[in-house]
C-alpha cells in the first residue's frame, strides 16, 4: 500500500508569492495533519483536519490555511511568503483523530522542501 504522498517534493518561491502544497493520506485514513520543520528544529504543528473539518490549529499566522477534500486529501496554502517560511512541510495521516486509540498511529510523508528567496 502507498504511504502518505506529498507534492511537490521541492519548491522555490519568491517573497510575497503564494504556495500550495498537496498531500494524499494513506488509503482509508480520515485525518490529515500538517507540520513545519525548520532546519535544525523539530516539526511544529500547523493544522489537523478530520472528516473535512479543522480539528486543531497551531500558533501560525492567518497567512497559513488548509483544507481537506471529500477524498481526504489535503492542501496547505501559504500567502505572502516570507524568508522564514523556508522549511520542510510534513503531512501526516492517521486512521482516527487522535492517539487515544493505539491502533491509529500518525504516519508521515517525506515532505515538501520549500525555499523562499
Amino acid at each position, binding site marked *: 500500500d502507498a504511504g*502518505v504522498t506529498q507534492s511537490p517534493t521541492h519548491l522555490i518561491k519568491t517573497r510575497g508569492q503564494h504556495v500550495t502544497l498537496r498531500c494524499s493520506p494513506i488509503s482509508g485514513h480520515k*485525518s490529515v*495533519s500538517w*507540520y513545519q520543520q525548520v532546519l*535544525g*528544529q*523539530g*516539526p*511544529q*504543528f500547523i493544522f*489537523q483536519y*478530520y472528516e473535512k473539518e479543522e*480539528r*486543531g490549529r*497551531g500558533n501560525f499566522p492567518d497567512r497559513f490555511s488548509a483544507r481537506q477534500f471529500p477524498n481526504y486529501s489535503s492542501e496547505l496554502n501559504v500567502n505572502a511568503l516570507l524568508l522564514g517560511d523556508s522549511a520542510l512541510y*510534513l503531512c*501526516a495521516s*492517521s486512521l482516527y*483523530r*487522535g*492517539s*487515544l486509540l*493505539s491502533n491509529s*498511529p*500518525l*504516519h*508521515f*510523508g*517525506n*515532505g515538501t522542501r520549500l525555499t523562499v528567496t
Partner: protein
Amino acid sequence: AQSVTQPDIHITVSEGASLELRCNYSYGATPYLFWYVQSPGQGLQLLLKYFSGDTLVQGIKGFEAEFKRSQSSFNLRKPSVHWSDAAEYFCAVDRGSGGSNYKLTFGKGTLLTVNP
C-alpha cells in the same frame, strides 16, 4: 506550557555499543509519548509510543523506551547500535485533548552518528 527537551544535540557511538537518548517532557496531564526517527531527506518513522500501562515500551528495530513519571522522562535505548541507526531522533508528546486529537509537540532532536 507543554514542552519536550532533548538535552543532547549530537551523540556519537561505535557500532555495537549501547545507546540511550534522553527526553524530558513538561505536560500537566497523562502524557502520550512518542519516539520518531528521521533519515536524511525522509519523513518521520514511528519507533514506539507510550499511552499507559507498562512503563517499558518495545518498539521497532530493537528500540525500547522507559517512561518515568517521577523524572518526567521517556528515554530511548538500544542495546547494540547498527550503522543503519544513524539518523535524527525526535521525542514528542501529544497535547491534543488527552489523545482525542493529534497535536504533537516535538523536541529539537538528537542526531546520532555511528562509527564503524
